[in-house]
């Protein structure tokens, strides 16, 4: 009994580790359960232009970091002849990350490029909650006349019609965007040309009203678009939490597709040694496999588990393992067929090897080749057995003849342009030769009937194994979640203690009197 308990313990342990690993990778890291899931990713390219003044140049440029709804996969700065410093990736920095280009001597029109690949995260709730704040001071001109009165007027009005910082901001945005702006707004925005300018003024008003506010600028990740401008937004502190307002919407909140490019900091571009800096943005939308996105993203965040992924192996090794990892599933099929159904196969794992051969030749071609080679191999065997040869030389002779048959089939098939003949490669050849050997021994020992039975059983098992092992879904799953091997192992161990009847025994034991099915 104790061995049974130990077995159940081991099975439980394997299931817990295996399923736990799968669940962790699914829920926490975000690996998709099914294959071929693709997610949109956006490649955003910032193009910075300026005129250099024939001297040293230093450009500091605000770039996006990881946010709640949008993640960063890759980033790079491309510019010929410039030194490039990418920002450190710690959490504090990610609020106002900046990259720096520098060059000792530059003249004329300069072009700098910065590219970032971003993806939409799944957690659509909890948008834009930035924790760290920068304390900004009110600009001097707003605390002096004539602007002071206008600012104070707006603040007084907004406070009258609001309850807290959030509603106050909303009211002010409404005032700034009214069809006919009131006098105070008109005065404050008289020099404003762009939305950005207006947002800057609004930020000053908010600061004057003792509301912590700073400007952020970002992009919508939607369709591919060239020459986009950054959209301004304001982030304010409402009690304990921070809220984000688009500059033209009185309600807090930004869409999940909003990528905040610049958060805090003085300006988008700081340029030394040049003039007329301008940045334009183009967004390119394409799709990538979810697995790749998940792996890159969690590697960036330093998650150790993805380091152990099979996807990190070189491609040719990956392909070898893709096939190899399917063998346990084939073994499970054989276990079920033999111990639960009760099908007789020749050799315990010959069906798996046959299935592997079929995977290489494709099913129909594999079956045709199998039947031809087995038929011819067995007839050669019977003529060899009349020559009174010792066992090992006889079997070896069969193998040689079988390989000869297959090689000539290949060559003829190639000449006749039959496509399947070409699929006979080294691996299936060896497996088929070995199968002929086994079957001829069986013929000698148990006669043709048993050969027929076991060949049919093996073929049936091999075809089932072929479908299981050839399933792209299962292949993807076991390759992405190698923990599944532990689950398969646990199931196989469970069958190891299966003491019930086999399906074939219901027929075998039919001579007993009893209820019929």
């Amino acid at each position, binding site marked *: 009994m104790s061995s049974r308990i130990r077995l159940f313990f081991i099975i439980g342990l394997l299931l817990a580790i295996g399923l736990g690993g799968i669940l962790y990778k699914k829920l926490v890291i975000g690996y998709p359960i099914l294959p071929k899931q693709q997610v949109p990713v956006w490649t955003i390219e910032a193009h910075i232009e300026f005129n250099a003044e024939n001297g040293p140049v230093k450009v500091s440029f605000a770039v996006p970091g990881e946010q709640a709804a949008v993640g960063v996969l890759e980033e790079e700065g491309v510019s010929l002849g410039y030194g490039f410093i990418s920002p450190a990736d710690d959490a504090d920095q990610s609020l106002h990350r900046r990259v720096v280009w520098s060059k000792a001597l530059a003249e004329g029109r300069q072009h700098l490029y910065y590219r970032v690949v971003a993806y939409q995260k799944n957690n659509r709730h909890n948008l834009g909650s930035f924790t760290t704040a920068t304390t900004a001071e009110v600009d001097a001109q707003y605390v002096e006349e004539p602007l002071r009165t206008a600012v104070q007027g707006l603040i007084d009005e907004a406070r009258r019609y609001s309850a807290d910082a959030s509603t106050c901001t909303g009211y002010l945005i409404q005032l700034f965007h009214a069809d006919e702006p009131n006098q105070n707004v008109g005065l404050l925005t008289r020099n404003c040309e762009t939305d950005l300018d207006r947002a800057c003024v609004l930020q000053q008003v908010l600061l004057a009203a003792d509301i912590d506010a700073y400007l952020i600028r970002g992009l919508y990740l939607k369709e591919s678009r060239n020459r986009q401008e950054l959209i301004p937004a304001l982030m304010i502190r409402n009690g304990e939490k921070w809220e984000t307002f688009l500059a033209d919407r009185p309600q807090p909140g930004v869409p999940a597709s909003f990528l905040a490019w610049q958060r805090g900091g003085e300006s988008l571009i700081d340029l030394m040694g040049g003039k007329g800096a301008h940045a334009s943005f183009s967004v390119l939308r394409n799709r990538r496999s979810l697995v790749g996105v998940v792996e890159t993203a969690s590697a960036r965040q330093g998650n150790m588990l993805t380091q152990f992924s099979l996807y990190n192996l070189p491609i040719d090794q990956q392909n070898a393992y893709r096939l190899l990892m399917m063998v346990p599933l084939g073994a499970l099929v054989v276990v079920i067929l033999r*111990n639960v159904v*009760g099908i007789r196969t020749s050799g315990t794992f010959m069906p798996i090897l046959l299935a592997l051969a079929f995977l290489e030749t494709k099913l129909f071609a594999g079956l045709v080749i199998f039947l031809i080679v087995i038929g011819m191999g067995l007839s050669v065997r019977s003529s060899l057995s009349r020559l*009174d040869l*010792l*066992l*090992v030389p006889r079997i070896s002779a069969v193998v040689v003849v079988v390989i000869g048959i297959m090689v000539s089939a290949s060559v003829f098939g190639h000449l006749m342009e039959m496509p399947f003949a070409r699929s006979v490669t080294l691996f299936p050849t060896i497996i088929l030769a070995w199968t002929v050997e086994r079957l001829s*021994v069986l013929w*000698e*020992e*148990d006669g043709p009937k048993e050969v027929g039975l076991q060949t049919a059983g093996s073929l049936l098992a091999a075809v089932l194994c072929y479908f299981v092992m050839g399933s792209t879904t299962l292949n993807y799953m076991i390759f992405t979640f190698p923990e599944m091997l532990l689950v398969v192992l646990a199931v196989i161990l469970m069958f*190891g*203690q*299966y*003491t*019930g*009847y*086999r399906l074939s*025994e*219901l*027929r*075998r*034991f*039919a*001579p*007993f*009197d*009893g*209820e*019929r*099915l």
Partner: protein
Amino acid sequence: MNGLISTKSLRGRGVIGMNARNVSYIARYNERALYPHVDDKYETKKLAREHQLQTPPLYGLIRYQHQMKHLGEMLDPYGSFVIKPAKGSEGKGILIIRGRSEKGYLKPNGEILSLRDLKRHVGNILNGLYSLGGRTDKAMIEYAINFSDVFEGFSYQGVPDIRVIVFRGYPVMAMVRLSTKVSDGKANLHQGAVGVGVDLAFGHAIRAVQFNRLVEMHPDTGRRLSELAVSRWDELLLLAAQAFDMTGLGYVGVDIVLDKDRGPMVLELNARPGLAIQMASNAGLLPRLQRIEAIGKKYCSPSAVERIAFAKTHFA
């Protein structure tokens, strides 16, 4: 006869299947280290001699290819003999020679073999053609059984044997295995031999199966199988029960032959005995096995005679 029987009926009769046999009895009661004693018939024979259990006398043993040169001389003194592989399974590779003619050696079916044929057969045995996994093997040459008159007309060209399932030293079920034309003279049920279940008390026939189906008469000789009654039954059971003491295997099939002159002899032991015996006996093994499991290992009798008495009381 046709169709499938329900698992409920099988369970009700206590019939055990392959999985239950393998997991609950063979794996649990047969220590792997003891297998060589029974997987190699030469080892079994040596062990039986040490325990003074009767086995067919050994005429010669061929281990190496070069010993085959002397095969002819080795066989000279014997009119009839059997050549068999020490590690053969399911009766494979057993060659019976019943006599001689000028042309050579006579098989029971009248086929004549030359010395060259015999050497080829021995060569195949040494090369492992009949052994599990193709391992190299030894060829045994031994006494050919003259089976007892009680089997007259019950067998076609082969020696009938009695398979007794012995669990922890207690005989639990027995059957006579009769060779047929399809079984090629072999007493193996897989190959088409007839299995006749016999009751443990007297050794009288219960019913018979061939290829897992009930039969009334021997397919080749036409004798009514219900008339079969084994003689010297108590001696035979004693031999089976003692075979347990000799090997220590908890769940074992003991194959015994009944010779006209020499009486019951242990032919071989099988650590993985088949399940068809249940159909031949029209009874499941499980209740009997559980009855013995209930005794507990400590209380199993060390005396083979007492164990037989127990079996006769409870399982007959």
